[in-house]
């Protein structure tokens, strides 16, 4: 096993997280650095995720590396019944590192155990997606100047949303205050509330969006997915209540920034896009620099 793999955000200490963010800042200042010249990075996407794949592949190409891989399991030998173990061993004969997206939870941890080259988890089912978490942290750092003592409102699907769960874990190093804003059906699971209690992280829970984020530094929106609801009537009600509109931002703090892992559907009205507090597209761009930093770290280049 290669110890350099990044499977879960909890694999990184506070110092490692901060070092990645520093490195990402230097990539932002100068993204075209040929540090991966002669290196081959595999992007194995056992389920499609165009946004994440393009971001990783751009990160490699901007550093002068080359990319091999597939974007859909249907075009890989796993469709012929090859085990993940065999695919990883085969690809590691060719590539210096493997970026992997897989629909099954735990696939990345398993791949990291059997792989002779580092694995970067680009999402394993509903479990972990650490590059998303690191780009969220980078966006908070960049817009607020620090990660310390932030008041962060998490909104939407807090039950199944892996990005919000990982964000709680990662922010636990930096004395945050959380507000969980979610409909009853999609409330934050107990294990994360227990985690907050254990780590002395104050949090409150409400089910109304309007007027509940005026003290926030970060408003982290997530997509409320239709398939999470058994009763579609309830979905329609929730969907309308959980739409952020520009007018709702009137009394918010000047330093507030709105984040969203994207893609968004109806949870942020397009009229918010012109507000300077809307940060979600820049956030996606930050993903490139953070992924450059991650690939460099797993290959011991920084």
């Amino acid at each position: 096993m290669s110890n350099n793999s990044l499977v879960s955000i909890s694999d990184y200490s506070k110092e490692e997280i901060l070092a990645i963010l520093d490195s990402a800042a230097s990539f932002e200042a100068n993204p075209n650095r040929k540090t991966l010249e002669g290196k081959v990075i595999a992007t194995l996407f056992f389920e499609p995720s165009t946004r994440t794949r393009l971001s990783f592949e751009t990160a490699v190409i901007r550093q002068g590396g080359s990319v091999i891989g597939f974007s859909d399991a249907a075009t890989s030998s796993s469709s012929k019944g090859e085990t993940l173990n065999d695919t990883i061993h085969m690809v590691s004969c060719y590539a210096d590192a493997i970026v992997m997206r897989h629909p099954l939870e735990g696939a990345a941890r398993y791949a990291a155990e059997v792989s002779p080259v580092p694995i970067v988890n680009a999402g394993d089912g509903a479990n972990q997606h650490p590059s998303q978490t690191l780009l969220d942290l980078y966006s908070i750092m960049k817009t607020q100047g620090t990660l310390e003592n932030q008041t962060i409102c998490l909104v939407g699907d807090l039950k199944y949303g892996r990005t919000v769960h990982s964000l709680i874990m990662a922010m636990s190093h930096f004395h945050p205050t959380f507000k969980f804003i979610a409909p009853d059906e999609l409330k934050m699971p107990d294990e994360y509330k227990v985690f907050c209690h254990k780590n002395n992280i104050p949090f409150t829970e409400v089910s109304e969006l309007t007027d509940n984020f005026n003290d926030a530094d970060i408003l982290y929106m997530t997509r409320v997915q239709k398939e999470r609801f058994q009763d579609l009537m309830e979905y329609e009600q929730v969907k309308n209540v959980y739409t952020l509109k520009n007018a709702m931002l009137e009394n918010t703090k000047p330093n507030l920034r709105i984040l969203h892992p994207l893609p968004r559907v109806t949870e942020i009205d397009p009229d918010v896009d012109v507000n300077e507090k809307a940060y979600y597209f820049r956030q996606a761009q930050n993903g490139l620099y953070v992924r450059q930093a991650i690939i460099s770290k797993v290959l011991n280049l920084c």
Partner: protein
Amino acid sequence: MSTKELKVAALRNGTVIDHIPADKLYKVVSILHLDTCEHQITIGNNLDSAKVGKKGIIKISDRAFKEDETNKIALIAPNAKINIIRDFAVVEKRPLCLPEEIREIVQCANPNCITNHQPVTTRFHVLNNDGEIMLKCHYCEREVRRDEAKIK
């Protein structure tokens, strides 16, 4: 030892696992791989027990189980008693304790976990959550309560 207790033949050398809940006996057999063990084995089940109602007992001749082997059954039969026998005498009474990590014997409850789809040996970390024992899947990171754990 009085004769009326000897419902199952006495053992000269080996291991006695006593006070197994009757409904867990065959799980214990499977966890310890006794189905492929070549030593003499005596199995008794549904014996009367003041402690657990109906109990099972297993006697394995000429084999002293190591602690990490017997601890595997702590998950399903935490109150079972392990006695190591030499020359008809108990030379060690061993309490069971849950290991920090449980391999192989538990199946992950998450249907979307890699271990339920590929030939992966399961691994669970044993956590103590304010007195409640939880098992956390090493792979998919989901936690289940000890009594919800599915034994393979």
